[in-house]
Structure formats: C-alpha cells, structure tokens
C-alpha cells in the first residue's frame, strides 16, 4: 500500500516537473511573441489611383517587388507617411526596421483605359488612363488608322468616326 502511494507520489512529482517545463516553454513563447509584436514594423497601405501611401510608426524601409519571391526588390525609405507612384500591376511588399522584416503583403494597381476628346478650336484626343493605349479609328465600321498614346499624352484628331482605345 505504502509502495503504491510512493509510486503515485513519484508519478505526480514527474508530472509536476513536466508541467513546469511545459509552463516555462509557454512563458518563453509568450515573451517572444510579445517582444516580436512590440517591435514588429506595423504598416498600413492605401492606394489612390497610381499613388500608394505607406503609413507606419516603426518601419524604416518598405521592401517592394513585382515578384512573390521578392526577386529584384526595391527598398523604399519611409517616414511616418510616404507615398510613391507606381505603374499598374501586382506588387508584393513587406515592412522592415533594424530588428524585424515583416510578413509578405500584396496590392494591385488596376490598369485604367480612359480617353477624352477635348473640343476647343481643334479636337484633341487625350489618354486620361494610366496605361499606354492603342487607339483604333473606324469610319462606318471600317478601321482607318490607329494612334499610340502614352498616359496624359494627346493628339489632334478629326472629330469624326469612332475612336476605340485598348491597353497595349
């Protein structure tokens, strides 16, 4: 009987030792996670047209790439708030400070095909989108020519027929 009690006591002691070790590990993990959370470069991103704004209190650099594997990254120094103009596409980015490089995020700047005919003394076709476009001109359903326009570029046109713009 006494032997059984001894064995039970020893088992409990063993278990207590294991529990102590597990508890220590949990405390260690909690401390590490808290420390990582505290120094993690928390950054938000806002997109307005082609302008991308990064806002952060503790990030120093934004690592940005067009590839999910971050090949050929560019490093953008940021103040509290930094904006950058990017061409349309999908971008992968992560914030960094001297301690931690953050997790991968992504955003997409959509392409926009936009055209405007300004009619003052002469008619002018303006590319008001954010990509280079190929404009085909048709008359009575027949294609009669085409114009290449960079964003914000314009060209004098004959104000007749149909001008159809598509991304190059």
């Amino acid at each position, binding site marked *: 009987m006494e*032997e059984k009690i*001894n*064995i039970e006591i020893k088992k409990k002691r*063993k278990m207590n*030792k294991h529990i102590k*070790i597990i508890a220590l*590990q949990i405390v*260690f*993990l909690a401390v*590490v996670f808290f420390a*990582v959370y505290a120094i993690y*470069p928390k950054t938000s991103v*806002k997109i*307005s047209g082609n*302008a991308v*704004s990064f806002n952060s209190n503790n990030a120093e*650099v934004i*690592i940005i790439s*067009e590839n999910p594997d971050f*090949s050929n990254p*560019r*490093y*953008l*120094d940021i*103040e509290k708030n*930094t*904006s950058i*103009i990017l061409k*349309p596409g999908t971008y992968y980015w*992560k914030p960094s400070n*001297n*301690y*931690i*490089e*953050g*997790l991968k995020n992504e955003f997409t700047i*959509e*392409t*926009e*095909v*936009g*055209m*405007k*005919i300004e*009619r003052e003394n002469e008619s002018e076709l303006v590319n*008001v*989108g954010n990509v*280079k476009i190929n404009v085909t001109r048709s008359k009575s359903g027949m294609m009669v020519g085409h114009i290449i326009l960079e*964003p*914000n*570029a314009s060209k004098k046109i004959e*104000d*007749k*027929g*149909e*001008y*159809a*713009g*598509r*991304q190059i």
Partner: protein
Amino acid sequence: MRLNNLITNKLAIKHKKEFGKLENCYSGKKKILSISLAILMIFFIINLIPKASALGITPGRTTIEFEAGLEKEIAFDVLNNEHKHMKVTLFSTMQDDLNGSINLFEDSIEFLPSEEKKSLRYKLKLPEELEPGLHVGEIVAVEIPTSTGKDTFVGATVAVISQLHIYVPCPGKCIESDLEVLDAETNGTATFIVPVISRGKLGIGEVRAIIDIYKLGEKITTLETDAQPLESGKRTELSAKWSVDAPAGDYLAKVSVFYDGESKSFEKYFTVGLKTLTIESILVKDFRLGEIAKLQILVENRWNQELKNVFANLLVYNEQEQVMADVKSATENIPALNKKELVAYWDTVGVEEGEYNGKLMVKYGEKSTDKNLILKISEGSLDITGVGYAIRQSGGKGINMTTILLVLVIILIIANLAWFVFFKRFIGKKETKSSGRVIRA
C-alpha cells in the same frame, strides 16, 4: 459656347454686308446666301457637339490561365470621368474558338452626373479545349451620342475596351519576356530587368538572358543576367547591372533569353539621361485661406533636349489619406538646360487650417519627378516643406519572420530534447535507484 455664338454672329454680319454689296447680281446673291447658310449651319451644329467626350474602363486587362470548362464571373468598372449625364452601350467580342464564352449581364447603362463609376460583371464560360497560346476577348463600352429632338450629334465617339487574355499553356516549354531599364543615367548604375513568365506546361530548370547594348548600330557592351529556375505559369525577374560610362541618348538593347536549350530574342530602345528634371522650388505668394492659391513651381530641365508637355500635379491628402485636392498646372515646353515656372491654382474653399500631406509630381511624357510634401496651412500662410524619399537597391536588415519562427522551433526542440535526455539520464535513474531502495527495504 459663347465664343462660337460670337463667331456665328460675326460671320452672319460679315455675310450680310457682302450680301448688300452684291444685291444687283441676282445669281451671285443666291450663291452667297447659300454659302452663308451653310456656314451658319456648320457653326450651329458645332454648338450642338459636347465640349468633351470622356469614358474610362478598368481593369484595362484581365489575365487568366486556361482551365477546361471554367465558369467565372469577372468584374469591371465603367468610369464617368467627366461626371456628366451619359449613356453607354456595352458589347463583347471574342475570337472564333471562344464565341459565346462571354455573357454580359447588361448591354447598356446610364450615368447621372453624380455617378463616377458603375461596377459591372460578365460571365465567362470556357470550352473544354482550346489551342495553346493567347486567346483574346474584349468588353467594349461605347458612349452613345446624345441627340435632342431633330438635332443629331456629328462628332467622333469614344469607345474603351477591357481586354480578357486567356493563356493556354503550350505543351512543352515556352516563355513571355520583356525588358525594363531603371536608373539609366550617365555615370550611374543602370539596372536591366528581364521579367520572364513561363507559358508552358513544363517548368524551366534555368532561365537566363544576355543583353547587348547598341548605340547607332555599334555594340557598346554585353551584360549577362543571373539565372533562375522557373515553374510552369510563374513569373520571375532576371537582372543585370551596367555602370553607365556612355553619354546620354537613345540606345538599343538586344535581349536573348535562354531557357533549357531554347532561346527567345527581342529588342527594345531605352534612354540614358542625366537627371532629367528637378523641382527647384515651390512659391506661394499672398495666400489667404478660402481663396484661390497660386502655386509657382520652378523646375529645371537638365536634359540636353527640349521636354514637351511638362505639367505639375499636386495631390493633397486629408487625415484619412484620401485625396482632397488634385491640382494640375497648364502644360509647358521646357527648352534644354533651362528653368521654367509652372503655375497651378488651388481653390482652398472648405480647406481647414492644419498640416496636410501632399505629393507634387512633375510629369513629362511617361516619366515623372515626384516630391513628397507637408503643407502647413494657416489663415494667412501656406508653408510647403519637401520630405523626399529614396528608393534604394539594398536595405531592410531586419530578421524575417520565417527565420524567427524557425529559430523558435529549433530552440523548443533543443529544450525538449535536453529535458528528455536530462530526465532519462538523471531524474529517471535517480528515481529507479530510490524505488529499488524502497523495494529492498
């Protein structure tokens, strides 16, 4: 409108005088009368044509990888850039083997001036099989000319297209590639980036590129990029650096991309320049909050050629980082190696005192010189401070999260192993000994 009326009236008076002088000549009078009427009619019709036609669509292109029998709804927006009342008709076109694959939910829409965009969808249903390669479909949005009563619109119409690119992988290995040249400035280091997309069913073991740079048909240098493996359907970038010891001007890059014994070549022109355009200063005189502020932006063209259609675009953000002002200057041509002032006007009605973030972009062609700004606005002053940012080729010294997690896992494994060994060797033995003693006792 007023200008056209004025011109119409002047022409009418002029023709009336002419008509008086020629009143004895009956046939001449008839001729002049008909010409006058024709001119008046033309001006009348011109007055009917809207001053501007504008239409936009986004995205300009949607790209998808082919999947047999795929059914998917794809979203797009039609934009009313001019905020006007407008009717737009929509239709789709597809290549023969994709006929009937696109079904638009709506074939016409109507905008009110208050509406900036309309979000729409179309349904795509792909066939079970398609030939390898690129298949293109188009969603076309056309502004319907407005007509009032018997008067009809005679000006050009605008149509914008959102493309649908469907890639069917080729049976073996094939690629799509391009070239981008960054920071090509004399005495600087240019970066050549060759983005490569695998369009084949098979992955590529190694892809690399050789770039030959030519000036007026004479080879200047040859660059070799790094080599990368590339999985099927994925994208990677190859890069090479060039210490630019050549003068500014236009150059030709001949690019050969090699991938597992096959190659693809293409050419692209690029420009080496000096730092082209710099923003020297921004001046605001006699600022009064609530009135129109005149911004005088001094820019310098450091390029040895005239820069055409240069304009400044100032964006001011509110606290929510939304654009609260978007101000553009008139376009100017800046002669080579000259300074010029670009003038933009900002209507500050409704703007409150405070500190705002802003961005000044001076655009020329497809390039832009940008400057981040802080605008401190008070009742009688507008102070603009440049903040500036730098894009570097290296940086970001922090430890990445994967490394942190890996280290944590390793530490925990080591700790547990150590505990296991310690427990087995010492505590376990000790307890066996003591339990042995208990038994012997």
